[in-house]
């Protein structure tokens, strides 16, 4: 069979019925748009969740504010507990845990959003009051300088360590979240990539003479701090330190009004001791709290929760895809069956003039396939555009569109087109030419 001829005929057939074709295509467009956007939402939610939970080693125990309910089978239901509750965890709790047997270290984290200021430049960052163990626990290496020490913690030293992005932004190397104090609240816009490239090419990155802030002083909340180190770019699963500024927790408690911990990471002396430490940590905090308004979570529970998220995600995506497939597929098939009916005479004429069964089949099959693929491409494009607009304007959580989802959508469209193209094509090909010509 002459594939190319069939394809050409299909293109022509679609073009000459373009208005009906457009309405038929809407189903596929909407279906694929839904697949793309919902996938991006599902994965965005999962990523956000992972970010909240962080990455936990086998010997690590996470202490979070808020109570994570135990489900009937004894598993902690992390999904129900991950709402943002005000924290009641304090540094005293952390100190209490340090006394628990088999605890190797406790890394408390006190977080707040703040503006760091250096040389007229204001950079929004996450201020993290923590302990000297932080860089080790977060797997964050220093690219320059050093991390603060236990001694500096004890003497409430005014020292800070900068995350990589913050360091570069304060140097004016690239315009990461920079904000004028006057216009706070406005969504900050990062420069588009092409502009950054242009700036680089034209050498317009202002005051590029300075290459390091180590030893310099940065102002935060009208207090001056000495920069003693810079962390290397770090993007381990879920929790990047790039936009953070770390300082000793004692300093943070003394110089800011932060009091309640965002979380604590407790390290057990050995993996074997984790279960025992888990219980002991729980009791140690409970002793200091009037009610159980905190949660102690181990790695296996975390993995269980993530596994649950992933499986919910998979079921959801499967459901969306199947629904989109059925809706758009049957829509397309209806239109094509109608089209075949309306074009009965045309089919009769083509057969009389020597079109073979397979040529007629090819023509209508390609019409359906083409219809689906164009609609699918438009839907995927719209979905992509939606995600871009969302991510540039809405900051609740980022939508993430992985390549495999785009591929899945494309294959699905192709599948729908092929599957639902068969019936109309067969219907067209089976027509008896004598009857088709008689059709009014």
């Amino acid at each position, binding site marked *: 069979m002459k594939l190319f*001829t069939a394809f050409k*005929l299909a293109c*022509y057939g679609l073009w*000459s*019925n373009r208005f009906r074709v457009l309405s038929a295509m809407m189903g596929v467009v909407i279906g694929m748009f839904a697949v793309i956007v919902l996938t991006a939402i599902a994965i965005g939610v999962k990523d956000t969740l992972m970010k909240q939970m962080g990455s936990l080693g086998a010997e690590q125990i996470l202490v979070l504010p808020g109570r994570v309910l135990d489900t009937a089978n004894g598993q902690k239901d992390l999904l129900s507990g991950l709402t943002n509750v005000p924290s009641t965890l304090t540094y005293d709790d952390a100190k209490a845990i340090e006394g628990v047997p088999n605890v190797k270290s406790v890394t408390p984290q006190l977080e707040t959003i703040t503006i760091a200021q250096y040389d007229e430049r204001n950079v929004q960052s996450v201020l993290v009051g923590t302990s000297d163990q932080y860089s080790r626990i977060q797997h964050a290496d220093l690219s320059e300088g050093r991390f603060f020490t236990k001694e500096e913690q004890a003497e409430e030293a005014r020292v800070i360590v900068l995350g990589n992005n913050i360091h570069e932004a304060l140097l004016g190397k690239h315009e990461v979240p920079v904000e004028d104090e006057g216009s706070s609240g406005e969504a900050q816009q990062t420069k588009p990539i092409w502009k950054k490239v242009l700036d680089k090419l034209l050498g317009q990155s202002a005051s590029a003479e300075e290459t390091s802030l180590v030893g310099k002083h940065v102002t935060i909340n009208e207090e001056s701090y000495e920069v003693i180190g810079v962390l290397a770019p770090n993007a381990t699963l879920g929790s990047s330190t790039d936009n953070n500024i770390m300082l000793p927790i004692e300093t943070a408690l003394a110089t800011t009004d932060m009091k309640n911990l965002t979380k604590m990471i407790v390290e057990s002396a050995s993996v074997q001791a984790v279960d025992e430490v888990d219980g002991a940590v729980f009791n140690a905090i409970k002793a200091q709290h009037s009610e159980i308004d905190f949660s102690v979570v181990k790695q296996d529970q975390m993995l269980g929760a993530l596994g649950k998220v992933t499986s919910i995600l998979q079921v959801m995506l499967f459901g969306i895809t199947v629904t989109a497939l059925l809706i758009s597929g049957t829509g397309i098939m209806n239109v094509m069956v109608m089209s075949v009916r309306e074009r009965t*005479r*045309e089919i*009769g*004429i*083509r*057969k*009389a*003039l*020597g*079109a*073979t*069964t*397979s*040529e007629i089949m090819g023509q209508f099959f390609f019409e359906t396939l083409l219809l689906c693929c164009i609609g699918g491409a438009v839907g995927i494009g719209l979905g992509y555009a939606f995600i871009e607009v969302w991510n540039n304007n809405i900051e609740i959580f980022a939508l993430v569109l992985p390549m495999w989802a785009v591929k899945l959508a494309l294959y699905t469209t192709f599948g729908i087109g092929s599957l639902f193209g068969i019936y109309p094509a067969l219907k067209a090909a089976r027509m*008896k*030419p*004598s009857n088709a*010509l008689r059709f009014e």
Partner: protein
Amino acid sequence: MIELRDVRKYYRSGSGKAEILRGVNLRVEPGEYVAIMGKSGSGKSTMLNLLGTLDLLDSGTYELAGKSVHKMSRGRLAHLRNEEIGFVFQHFQLIPNLSVYQNVLLPLTYGRKRLRRKKALVLALLDEMGISDKKNQKPDRLSGGEKQRVAIARALVNEPGLILADEPTGSLDEETTESILNLFDRVHKNGATIIVITHDIEVAERADRILHLQNGVLV
């Protein structure tokens, strides 16, 4: 050219079956011009569909240009139609969303021959039919006579040996009928075999031979 022997054709109608052709015998020599007449509903179109292999015989044999048509597969019949037969119908049967040029090109599209100068061929034929100025128009913009010229051009483009016409002048006025019949004469002179179905005696008289379909047989 054509040899039908004891050809029968039934249609299932309601309870029983209606026998439309009841043993038709026909022999047409190459280059002959034959007219078939008969009352409405006598089975003329049915017979033409059989001759054009658009429908299958229920019994009997059909030989066209030395080939046993009744034994052929659908695929081979399609090629046979494309290469050997040109159709002209009463209702023109042009594809409405294709232009005049594209309609005439259709048989070449489905042909197996690798013709290099398809476009020139079509344009020359449209010129010959006197409709080259309409080549980019859609059929619904044409008059009946013009439509039939397009249909004839389409029937001739593959240079078939056999032209089958079912009431080619059925919906045309006298003057236009005359010009269409003149075209048929020219085609006939060029050596084509023509079978024309009509109930108009003036049309039939242009043929070499007139046959009548009565009670399912040709006389």
